[in-house]
């Protein structure tokens, strides 16, 4: 049974409520605002709260001391946005002359497209997708231009290059934003493999820029896959909020939902989409047309699987209460989701190797740390 609003922790209930129904802001007490602001900050959603309130023309109803926090978060988001624009400019200068197709993913795409989804967000990386056959060339050009790999040990680097779908993270000196260069949407070793070629073929150029972005339907599906396949969901409420924002914005376009269903089948991402819609509707009021919702629900797991995910996702997605630390059951739930994400990412034999290697490395590091004490 999906937790109804009544059984949610107060800070979660308030935060979800104001995201889903900004008009609630008008009736919040100062005590409630205190919880909302602290929970939102912890979930990195404070700027998004402000964005939604502004869109609803409700900022003036926010008490002055509270408003300072919303505005502060907004200023932080504005800075991050500019750092992403800077990184985009710098990367394009290096890669555009090589005629490498450049596809932006996630937060950087939202910024480049000027989507409402981007407002108030705090991106940390520039996610760039290039064709696999151009990856080496792109890497060489970036390194030549000053980008360096963030410190990784040889195991991680091997994992990234051989088994994963991206180069190890890179950063140019003095740049605030990390560059993640991918050649596919999800790890190629995972159980679900979306049709990258089809996604690339459907990309859209961003006017006045060298970059392309995923089509609206693919953009939504990528966000769903990123949250429910590629992560352990921990504290990732903001990713669900992104999907909610994308669906609200793209969902009004003609033919969007039909295309979405078709692309979902094509990419095999029905399960992730079904979770996004299930939890988005329940917790954020994501609007889904009544004829489409049952179609999407059909992609979901059976009742037992659904029940299990309901519990896990509820535990893992939400920020901890501002005045408490996580309880043991939350910690276990998060561990389970983490295990699940690794399970989805890698075939069993590789998972065992990865876990073992990490375990050994961890033990070695711990021994070294103790010795140095």
């Amino acid at each position, binding site marked *: 049974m999906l937790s109804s609003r009544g059984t949610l922790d107060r800070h979660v209930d308030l935060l979800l409520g104001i995201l889903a129904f900004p008009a609630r802001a008008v009736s919040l007490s100062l005590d409630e605002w205190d919880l909302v602001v602290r929970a939102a900050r912890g979930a990195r959603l404070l700027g998004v709260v402000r964005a939604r309130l502004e869109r609803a023309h409700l900022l003036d109803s926010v008490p002055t001391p509270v408003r300072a*926090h919303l505005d502060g978060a907004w200023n932080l988001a504005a800075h991050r946005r500019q750092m992403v624009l800077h990184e985009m400019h710098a990367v394009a200068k290096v890669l555009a002359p090589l005629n490498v197709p450049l596809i932006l993913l996630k937060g950087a795409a939202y910024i480049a497209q000027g989507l409402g989804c981007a407002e108030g967000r705090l991106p940390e990386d520039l996610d760039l997708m290039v064709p696999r056959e151009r990856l080496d060339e792109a890497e060489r050009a970036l390194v030549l231009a000053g980008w360096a790999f963030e410190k990784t040990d040889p195991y991680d680097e091997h994992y990234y290059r051989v088994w994963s779908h991206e180069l190890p993270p890179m950063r140019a000196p003095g740049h605030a934003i990390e560059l993640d260069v991918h050649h596919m949407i999800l790890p190629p070793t995972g159980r679900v493999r979306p049709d990258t070629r089809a996604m690339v073929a459907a990309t859209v150029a961003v006017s006045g820029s060298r970059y392309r972005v995923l089509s609206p339907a693919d953009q939504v599906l990528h966000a769903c896959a990123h949250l429910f396949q590629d992560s352990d969901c921990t504290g990732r409420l903001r990713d669900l909020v992104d999907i909610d924002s994308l669906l609200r914005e793209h969902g009004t376009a003609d033919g969007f939902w039909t295309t979405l269903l078709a692309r979902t089948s094509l990419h095999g991402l029905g399960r992730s989409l079904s979770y996004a819609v299930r939890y988005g509707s329940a917790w954020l009021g994501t609007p889904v047309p009544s004829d489409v919702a049952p179609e999407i629900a059909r992609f979901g797991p059976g009742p037992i699987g659904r029940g299990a995910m309901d519990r896990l996702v509820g535990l893992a997605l939400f920020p901890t209460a*501002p*005045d408490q630390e996580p309880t043991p059951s939350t910690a276990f739930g998060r561990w389970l989701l983490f295990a699940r994400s690794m399970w989805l990412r890698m075939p069993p034999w590789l998972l065992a190797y990865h876990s073992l290697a990490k375990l050994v490395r961890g033990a070695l590091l711990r021994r070294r740390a103790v010795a140095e004490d």
Partner: protein
Amino acid sequence: MRIGELSDEALGTRLRAEGLALDFGAAHGRVFTDVPGLGESLRRVYAHFPVERGDGFFDVTARVRRARGARRFFRPQVELVVDGRVPFEPFPAANDLPLLEWGMNWSLAERCNTHLLLHAGVVERSGVGVLLPALPGSGKSTLTAALAVSGHRLLSDEFGVVRLDDAACLPMLRPIALKNESIGVIARLRPDATLGPVYRGTRKGDVAHLGPDAESVAKRDVAAIARFIVFPRYEKDAATELEPIARARAFAKLAVNSFNYEVLGPAAFDAVGRLIARCECYRLSYGNLVEAIATVDDLLSRPSGGGA
């Protein structure tokens, strides 16, 4: 009523149940703790602060508690909890107030992003504000404290809060952390100053906190217009020297000594520009605190205070 007047019981109830409200001016903090003895230290250092309700909306809510597990008994430690997270390594249990003060400063610095936060002391006298920005080790805190106990209104030691639209300075009234010899220097300068306990063995040596005086607390909502920017530099036995510094350099030094200059972008650039244009900028080298105070006093009483 003032915090200094709270009974043990009333203070304890606040710290355990509804929270002890601390009104710094530009921000409001709230503290919870069950660590014995911390309440008494807070009452000493925040003696002149008004007693306010612990419910409502606060800019920072911090809890000091004993560390869990083995460290509860063996070489006990205390830790700071802010919004469900423990942001720092624990301190030895004896150093509870330094942990709280330091952690509160850190939390304020990271979330106060509608004003420009300079790493600077600010004092005011007769309507004229002086900004004292400095790198650590420059003696800024000692000088700011000395000015504060010598007839200047204190606005801040750690955070020079600058309003973006008009570059006015806002009070962020926090106790001043004095280190090592400075503690004795200030105590001798003003024997009746509100000084908290001396904590030994912190990362910075001995630390004691100078509590803001009643007048500064009373004016915690009163902005000041800075007319002078003075970069202090303490050096033992150095002669007292006040030298003008080029405005462009002063701009650069202010920007570098800031918590959030980069994040605020164009608004910060404009605010610092306005501030620099309005102020005379100096470097003050000194080895004798009393002379340094006299030099600042002298500066403030010049007839034409202010820039071009």
